């Protein structure tokens, strides 16, 4: 059975906090709930960006997700919160 929205949010945040690398592909979050469709997980990850729990990190050709406090800004700050 698919996770509820709140459970899915918590699972995505947990994954983003504990993953070895700070930047994650959207596919990395699919494993948070195999019963939820990939597009629903994408929508939830993007909602978490709007809520400030995650942020986008773009290489230019690929976009990844990260916890704001785990990512180093190119402009020199450790974490951007």
């Amino acid at each position, binding site marked *: 059975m698919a996770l509820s929205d709140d459970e899915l949010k918590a699972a995505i945040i947990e994954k983003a906090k504990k993953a070895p690398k700070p930047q994650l*592909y*959207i*596919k990395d979050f*699919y494993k948070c709930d195999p019963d939820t*469709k*990939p*597009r629903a997980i*994408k929508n939830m990850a*993007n909602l978490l*960006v*709007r809520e400030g729990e995650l*942020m*986008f*990190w*773009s*290489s*230019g*050709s*690929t*976009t990844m*997700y990260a916890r704001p406090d785990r*990512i180093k*800004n*190119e*402009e020199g700050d450790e974490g*951007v919160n």
Partner: protein
Amino acid sequence: MAKHDTPLLDELESGPWPSFVSDIKRQAEKNPDCWDILGQLELSYKEKITHWKHGGIVGVFGYGGGIVGRYSDLPKMFPGVEHFHTVRVNQPASKYYSTENLRGICDLWEKHGSGMTNMHGSTGDMVLLGCRTEALEPFFWDLTHGMGQDLGGSGSNLRTPANCLGQSRCEWSCYDTEETCHHLTMHYQDEIHRPAFPYKFKFKFSGCPNDCVAAIARSDVAVIGTWRDDIRIDQAAVKEYVAGNFASNGGSHADGDWGAFDIQKEVIDLCPTECMWMEGGELKIDNAECTRCMHCINVLPRALRPGAQQGASICVGAKAPILDGAQFATLIVPFMEISADNEFENLIDFIETIWDWWMEVGKNRERVGETMQRVGLPTFIKVMGIEPIPQHVREPRSNPYVFWQDEEVPGGFERDVQEFRKKHAA
């Protein structure tokens, strides 16, 4: 007054062709930061290594695309390009815009950025080169609120859709490419502005098989206008071409001395499927053999036109990377009606079936054409719910084995794999 010596770059101004070096120097007279572009590039030419770092966390609030972060790795030496982010602006359909709009965009970019532009990027966007992070939000406000325009796609987003001139200028267009492109752009705003996929995804719309946006070469879903009845022939106009009274190719090559027009040599003998011939002074076409190469229609535009039953062929899986093997799209649906009457429902259903599958099966940084190649066309068309047809066959098969699924055989068959593996290890 030049800030850096650039002897290597100066060589690029010595030829008879337009030079980007001259362009940047001209812009540097207005915006001195641009001298540092030339200084850094000169150093890269000397050291044979780039000094750009790209990517990062730059963007505007609520968007996950449209801006590509770019930084110099020598900011103390070249402070003017310490931040040099690229902004992609969604171009209007068919790239129709007024000079007033272009001036507005350029003024905006001189206010917030370097003033340098690239018209257009490969995907079609208006590309604005070089601004600092703190200028992004003010620029975005002015662009959206002052100009009524929006950012395009980048990263793992749906990239900015692009289309040819379509029925606005071209009598060959077999569907309304502008309406289709506009509708899908609006329908998929979330996918354009926020990352949605394992990697980039593009669709492009060409009105006829001339494919003026090169959809078949570059887009994950290429929607290319076609017809399913016969090429329409005006035999009286054919006679005028043969008599030399009408200029072939619409007069496009009239400045050369090509001699008298020869329909046999210039049209019939060049038909790739040899499906044309002259009979009793009339041009005949075996339409079942026509592969829509458009050559005859291009050469004889007053005599030949696409058929009247019009729609589009859908090809899937093109990519055009610089380093790693370009690939044309593969024909999946030979004919689909493309109509605003049902809000392009069949095309949208087709696209979303691909997305649902690719998002699950595609690997990170794998274009849908690569996923198709990995799983094979038979698997892909099964996923799409499409029956195999002769048009799917690229070449005679070289694998002698035929594999059947139980549902494909009358009565089916049952096989206990575990029992089989007891005697035959994998």
